[in-house]
Each structure stands twice: as structure tokens, then as C-alpha cells.
């Protein structure tokens, strides 16, 4: 009896663990020996509290490996090895890209020194400055060295909490090339830089949403995660926004926030309930889909009706129809649209291809044949055919009346000499 109550209590406490990732909880932290784990205790303890399992290892160790027998061993990898020049054989730039293809999320910190990661960054459309050029800004006037910079956080990124205090940063900026998969998170202030490496178009913390789902975040310096920067004040009595900032960045990278998925997709004709194998041209089709968003607090996928620019394409080689797919009021998570199938017959696809910066890419494609009408699906009785109907019916009627008259009548030979009867 007591054991059962104790077990229930323990289970109850366990279920209090919050904010787990939607893709797994195992995190490998590759920490270089120069950096002390305790300097990042606030960040790592924050991750542990959320429910992640952290495993630490140095860049030169081979155990635990990130990839074993072509399987990713961890759901997420944090690379705090900004100055290590030689990595173990399982962390090469190629193996990191392989990890991405296995849907592992990465959080990578860089430094002004040149490392193997410096050659990986351009693959993500980031241009790094020459080695040895950290970001230097003399604005705003402050007591810290010019390389430790408080950066204002823009309020427009959906990844970060609103109203964050400026964030202490130290490290390198990178120039963002023209790739729409890049998700800028923190850009340099407009008043700092070194030579041409200056201005607010430079990124300091930039995310990259790889095709297929995994997220990579590149951070210009590892100090932004350190306890020292978290506890440093930006202004008199104003705490820095570092703690919340790095928690938000980790939440986005580890697929907690802004994670969407399509639960189901269905199609049918307007006045029916079940989907059909084939549809006819000019049919009224109803397409609906259910979309959920991951809620890290309850660790569950909840229906989400907040996408207001979802679009549906009805495609055969090229989109024939593109309409918006609005949410259905009253049913959370459901989006539905009714439209008329095109005049052309062929094999069409219902395509949803929704990509927005920072959010998971929603992609779905359902193939459906559209056939021309069968011989008995055309309009049956046309007004232009009335004369023909009348003619045919009157022929039948005439035959019947004549037969009846002939069968029922008698020859009038006895009365008159005329032989045949009516025509």
C-alpha cells in the first residue's frame, strides 16, 4: 500500500519535468579542455532542469561518439570548442553534415581563431572575418573593454522573448549571404566593427534551418553563454538579458519552440464524408489538414490555429490553383478550403509547402487523379431537346392509339364499301 503511494508520488514528481524537446532529450556537449564546465553552470543547469540529459566530452576524445554505425547517438550536439584546432575523427565537418541529415540539431560556438569549423561555416552561407579580428565596438561608452559589447536585442525575431535587456557579447561577427534558410537571431549593433566588418547587417548569433528539419545555430563567441556575462549588469541595476537569451536560443535550436507538424491531411467531395479514389473535373473539393505546434511546457503537440497565411496548391506539373487555407473557427488546429477542381483531367497533387523564417517547414503532397465525366455524368435533360422529346413521345403515343383503334375497331364492310380505316 505504502509502496503504491510512494510510486504514485514519484511518478507525479517526474511528470513535473518541463520543456523537453520535441525530438529527444539526449545532448552531447563537446567542451574543450580550456573551458571550465563550471563557468557555464547556469546555462547547463538550465538545460538539465528542462529535462535534457547532458553528456560531456572533450573534442579529442573518441568516446562517446556522435555517430555509430550510421546512427546518430544523440538528439542534439553543443560544440563549445571554439579554439580547438584538431578534433577527434568523428567530429569532422563532413560528419557534422551527416549528423544534420540524421536530424540532429547543432549549437556551434566560434572564435577569432581559425579551426576546422571555420571551413564549415561557409557551407551555411556565413562569411567569417579574417582570423584574429574580433568584433570591436566603442559604443556605447562603458567600462568594459571594447571587445565586450552589449548588444541590443531586436524585438522582431519570433525566437526571442519580447523586451529582452541588451546582451553581453564577445567574439566574431559573420556576414550573412543571401540564403533564405538563414534565420538571423542577433545582429551587430550599427556602431561597431572592424574595417569593413562593421554594421548592423552582420550577424552575431544566426540560426540555419536545414531542409528536412534540423536546426543549427552559429554563435560568434562562447562567452555569451558564460556565467560571468549572465551576471554582469548592462546598466545600473539592470541585469543583462543573457540568461533568457541563451535559453531562447537553446530552445529554438533543440526544436522546442516554433516547432510545427502536419498531423493529417484529408480530401473529399463537398457533400460527402469519405475521400474518393478519383475525382471528376469541375467537382467541388474540400481539403482539410490538421496542424499541431509543440508545447514545451506540456511536452505535447497541441493543435495550432495561428498560421494565417497557409496556402494550398493543386498542382499537375505547375500549380493550377493556389488558394489560401484558412483556419476553421471552432476547431483548433484544423485548416480547410473548398474549391472547384480544374477543367483539365490528369493526376493532380494537393501540395502544402509552407516555409517561414524560424518555423518548421511544413510540406505535404497527396496525389489524386481527376478524370473527365463518365457518360452518365453529363447533364441529362437539356432544354434544347424539348422538340425531340415531344416528337418521340408523340410517335409512341400515336402508335399506341393506332394499335388500340385497329384492334378494337371493326370493319365497316357491312355498312359502307370503304375498306381501310384511318391512317
Amino acid at each position, binding site marked *: 500500500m505504502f509502496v503504491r503511494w510512494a510510486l504514485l508520488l514519484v511518478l507525479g514528481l517526474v511528470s513535473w519535468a518541463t520543456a523537453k524537446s520535441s525530438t529527444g532529450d539526449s545532448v552531447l556537449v563537446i567542451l574543450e579542455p580550456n573551458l571550465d564546465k563550471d563557468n557555464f553552470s547556469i546555462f547547463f543547469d538550465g538545460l538539465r532542469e528542462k529535462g535534457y540529459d547532458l553528456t560531456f566530452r572533450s573534442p579529442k576524445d573518441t568516446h562517446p561518439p556522435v555517430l555509430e554505425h550510421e546512427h546518430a547517438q544523440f538528439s542534439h550536439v553543443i560544440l563549445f570548442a571554439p579554439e580547438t584546432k584538431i578534433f577527434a575523427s568523428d567530429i569532422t565537418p563532413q560528419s557534422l553534415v551527416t549528423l544534420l541529415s540524421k536530424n540532429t540539431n547543432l549549437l556551434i560556438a566560434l572564435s577569432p581563431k581559425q579551426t576546422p569549423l571555420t571551413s564549415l561555416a561557409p557551407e551555411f552561407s556565413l562569411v567569417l572575418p579574417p582570423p584574429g579580428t574580433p568584433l570591436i*565596438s566603442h559604443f556605447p561608452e562603458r567600462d568594459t573593454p571594447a571587445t565586450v559589447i552589449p548588444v541590443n536585442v531586436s524585438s522582431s525575431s519570433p525566437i526571442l522573448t519580447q523586451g529582452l535587456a541588451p546582451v553581453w557579447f564577445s567574439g566574431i561577427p559573420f556576414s550573412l549571404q543571401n540564403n533564405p534558410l538563414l534565420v538571423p537571431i542577433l545582429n551587430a549593433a550599427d556602431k561597431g566593427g572592424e574595417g569593413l566588418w562593421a554594421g548592423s547587417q552582420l550577424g552575431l548569433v544566426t540560426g540555419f534551418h536545414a531542409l528536412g528539419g534540423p536546426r543549427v545555430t552559429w554563435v560568434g563567441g562562447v562567452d555569451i553563454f558564460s556565467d560571468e556575462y549572465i551576471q554582469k549588469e548592462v546598466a545600473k541595476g539592470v541585469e543583462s538579458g543573457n540568461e533568457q537569451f541563451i535559453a531562447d536560443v537553446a530552445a529554438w535550436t533543440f526544436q522546442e519552440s516554433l516547432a510545427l507538424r502536419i498531423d493529417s491531411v484529408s480530401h473529399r467531395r463537398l457533400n460527402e464524408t469519405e475521400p474518393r479514389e478519383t475525382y471528376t473535373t469541375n467537382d467541388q473539393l474540400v481539403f482539410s489538414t490538421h496542424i499541431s505546434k509543440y508545447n514545451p511546457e506540456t511536452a505535447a503537440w497541441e493543435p495550432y490555429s495561428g498560421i494565417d497565411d497557409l496556402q494550398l496548391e493543386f498542382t499537375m506539373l505547375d500549380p493550377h490553383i493556389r488558394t489560401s487555407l484558412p483556419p476553421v473557427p471552432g476547431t483548433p488546429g484544423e485548416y480547410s478550403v473548398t474549391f472547384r477542381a480544374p477543367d483539365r483531367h490528369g493526376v493532380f497533387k494537393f501540395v502544402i509547402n509552407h516555409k517561414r523564417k524560424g518555423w518548421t517547414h511544413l510540406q505535404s503532397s497527396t496525389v489524386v487523379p481527376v478524370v473527365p465525366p463518365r457518360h452518365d455524368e453529363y447533364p441529362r435533360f437539356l432544354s434544347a431537346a424539348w422538340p425531340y422529346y415531344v416528337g418521340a413521345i408523340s410517335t409512341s403515343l400515336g402508335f399506341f392509339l393506332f394499335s388500340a*383503334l385497329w384492334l*378494337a375497331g371493326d370493319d365497316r364492310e357491312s355498312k359502307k364499301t370503304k375498306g381501310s380505316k384511318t391512317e
Partner: protein
Amino acid sequence: MYSLRPLFWLLLAVAAVQASVLSLQSPRFTILSSSAEQLRSEPLSVTQKPAPLTLGASDALKLTFQVLDKDEGKGVQPHQTFLRFYDEISGEEGIQPVRVTSGGKAKFELNMARPPASIPPTSAGIPLKVELIIGSFVHSPLKVELFELFLPESHPAPQHPDEASFHPLPPIHHTFRPEQKLPPRIISAVSAVLVLAPWVVLVGLWGHIRPSVPYLLSPSILPFIVTLGAFETLLVWYWVDLKLGQVLLYGGILSVFAALAGRQALATKGDLRVGRK
């Protein structure tokens, strides 16, 4: 960066003692046309911006100033001197470093015939705000808004080919074939009535002849007439509703009755004729 730390702390100590202030001495701008003719030349005031400058496609802008330490009055060479060109509407920005001599003298030239890569893309009618940003390890930093600059319109910044798919795409509507057009119903109705014209003649002639039907209800004739009527009804029913299989089935059953009744009726008719004769 780690090896420069002690130097930074030293400079920090120096700066903390006395954060001296920078100032600009005799800032001046000149706009030259392509034939080196001076179009506009004015001194710049730090407190009041001049009227917005306009550069044509072949003009050049020359900017000169000297950076001084305000207290000592001597020229200094600051660590960072930038000109920032900023488009407020689009948010595009370009930073151009300016070379400053050790005596603090600075000269900057912008030739529109060969514009530097740091100028951001411009749109027609929207000026660039030009600011001077000076950062120094030993002085307080200085930011001065210089003037607004109208440049000729440039090509827009190139976009990645996939960029459009990250925004809502324009809707596509399918143009359907127009509905099949039928002639007006009045015409069909009038034609239907015209088709009935021969009945007028027939009924008229029957009325004239007045045929008699004495054997209509006789039990040997009537069944056949009824089956004939049933066949006609079946045909109309087929036209409206039935499928071929059903009509063949019903027709088959009915044809048995029709055959029997028909034999009876025609035999009777034959007898009648023979009987008469």
C-alpha cells in the same frame, strides 16, 4: 584576443581615469561634377544639418575634416572612423571606413562613376542618412549626423531564387471553360409545340371519320392493348430512370404476357374477319 587582454586592461585604466572628448575641426564637403566643376561646397556644422545633398550619376563628393582631442586641441588618430550610409525605409546600411592620418586629418571621396561596394542599394527619392562614427580606446566615442544624401537609383539587392517561397505567393485562379450555351427556352418551347402540329390534322381527320371501337373492352382484345400500353410505359420509364439491365428484365417478363395476349387478340381479330366474310 587573449594575448591582447593585458593591453586592454591598461587602456581601460587610462580611460577610466579621464574619458576625454573628441571633436571635429573644420568639416567640409564639396560636390564636384564630372568635369571637376565645383557644384556645391559648404562647411558642415555639427549642430545643424545642411540642406540635403544630391549626387548625379557622374558627380563626386569630397569630405574633409580633422579629429581633435577637445581638451588638448591636438589632432588624434582614432581607432575606428566610419561613415555610415543608412536607408531608413528599407533598413539597408553600408559602412565605409575612413582613413585618418596620425595628425587627425581625414579625407573621403565618393565618386559615383565608380561607387564603392559599401554603399547600400538605393531607391528613387529616398535619401541616405550619412553619419560619422568615431571610436577610440582612450576617448569617449563620437557619433555625428552629417547630412542626407540623394543618390541615383541603384539595382535592387539580388534575391535568392528561393526567397519568394518563404513568403505568401500570389493566388492562382483557374479559368474554366464557359458553360455550354443553349438556345433560348422560348424557341425550344415553340418548336416543341410546332412538333405537335400533325396531331391537329390526325385528330381532325379522326373526328371526321369517327371510327367506332366496339371490341375495345372485349376480354380477348383488351389484355393485348394493355400490354402494348405497358410496353410504352416501360420505354418512357427507361428513358427517365432505369438502366439497361433492368429494362431488359422487365421487358422480358412483359414480352411473355404480350406474346400470349397478342396471340389471343390477333386470333380473335382473324376470327372476326372470317366470321364477317
